[in-house]
């Protein structure tokens, strides 16, 4: 979704060809993501088919084709920009499954697993702090916002670990018989 609307947004400023879209979009993302050029071209084709963008001018060097936004594309972009994001929160499924399985297999002793995970997050915070210093020194507000977001998410991950530990250790030890009653024939 974001690539599609990223392309629309960039074309709303000025007509661009595929490679320019790629480099400008990567710059907006603070170079945190390498955009696949093939994906840019295929998305442009779909957008052209849906009449949200149209080719402009002749094909240039090496067959480069510039595109511009149509009125319909502009409307779609404006609608998307005005809509709040309502996707469900993404959580760490692998860690969650580890915790649930450890609860069954390690007789409720989750402190080791959680301590090791907390270490990873703490080191992550340290690395992000260093990245933040560089982003400030290089006057990169775009990157700074992404880093701040990553820091806040990591802080929340640490809090979540604490909550997991509190909740799971206050429960009765896990007994296979106490759950899955509904599975029995």
């Amino acid at each position, binding site marked *: 979704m974001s690539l599609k609307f990223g392309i629309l947004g960039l074309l709303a400023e000025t007509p661009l060809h595929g490679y320019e879209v790629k480099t400008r979009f990567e710059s907006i993302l603070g170079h945190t993501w390498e955009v696949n050029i093939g994906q840019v071209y295929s998305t442009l084709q779909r957008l052209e088919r849906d009449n949200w963008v149209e080719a402009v001018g002749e094909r240039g060097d090496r067959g480069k084709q510039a595109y511009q936004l149509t009125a319909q594309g502009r409307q779609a972009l404006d609608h998307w920009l005005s809509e709040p994001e309502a996707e469900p929160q993404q959580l760490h499924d692998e860690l969650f499954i580890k915790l649930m399985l450890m609860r069954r297999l390690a007789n409720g002793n989750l402190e080791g697993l959680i301590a090791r995970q907390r270490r990873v997050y703490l080191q992550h915070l340290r690395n992000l702090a260093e*990245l933040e210093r560089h982003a400030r020194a290089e006057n990169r507000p775009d990157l700074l916002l992404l880093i701040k977001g990553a820091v806040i998410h990591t802080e929340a991950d640490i809090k979540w670990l604490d909550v997991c530990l509190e909740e799971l250790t206050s429960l009765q030890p896990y007994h296979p018989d106490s759950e899955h009653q509904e599975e029995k024939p």
Partner: protein
Amino acid sequence: MSHLTDQHGHSTYLIELSNVNKTYNGSTDQVALSDITLKIPAGQFTAIMGASGSGKSTLLNLIAGLDRPTKGEVWVDGIRVNALGEAALARYRRKRLGFVFQFFNLLNQLSVLDNILLPAQLAGLQSKVAHQRARQLLDQLGITDKARVYPGQLSGGQRQRVAIARALINQPSVLLADEPTGALDSRSGDAVMELLAQINEKGQTIVLVTHDARLAAAYATRIISLRDGRIVDDSILQAPQHQAPSDLLHLHSEEAV
């Protein structure tokens, strides 16, 4: 009790707690710390983390000689702190320790300079030496222009700088900081932690109590996590290497191609 010593009979660690227990007597005994063994070498910047009630303040108080262990030993700078009498404890705190608190604890009727000089006077330091050190600290902490100002006229971040200067005037073996950023906004908090990290880089041993994981991870080098009076993790963090943003951040897009 095994107490690690070098060939001169000195501890190889600046701070060493062995099998420390702390129980508060009430109608039912409240266990504040249970079986804490902890060794901190000189020059380390250690953060103690934990929820309220985890025992982190009790641990700091034992190192500070403000509280005594129910069992076990506390050694700091070659001194068996748990065995000291009240007068010796007061001397120990004055000469070997510097304190930084959440709410600064400055004396409002004294100027910044006089606040910083006070511990030196109490320790009987020669006035000329004390003034020299105070000037140096004011300069190091970026508050030279505030020397004649009273604490009431300063911002929180500036007050905490004064408190740090006061804590360092007697050149303590250990700087103990109890939630030093707790009363500060995020920007001043970072500035204060940055100063502590700079002071640590010059060799000052620091023990910090905080509940702020971000600040602990960004500035301290070792993080000890307490839970229910026990150490549940003790991590030495690695120096951050400058990484490309894409190594640390991912903006994932569920692209429908």
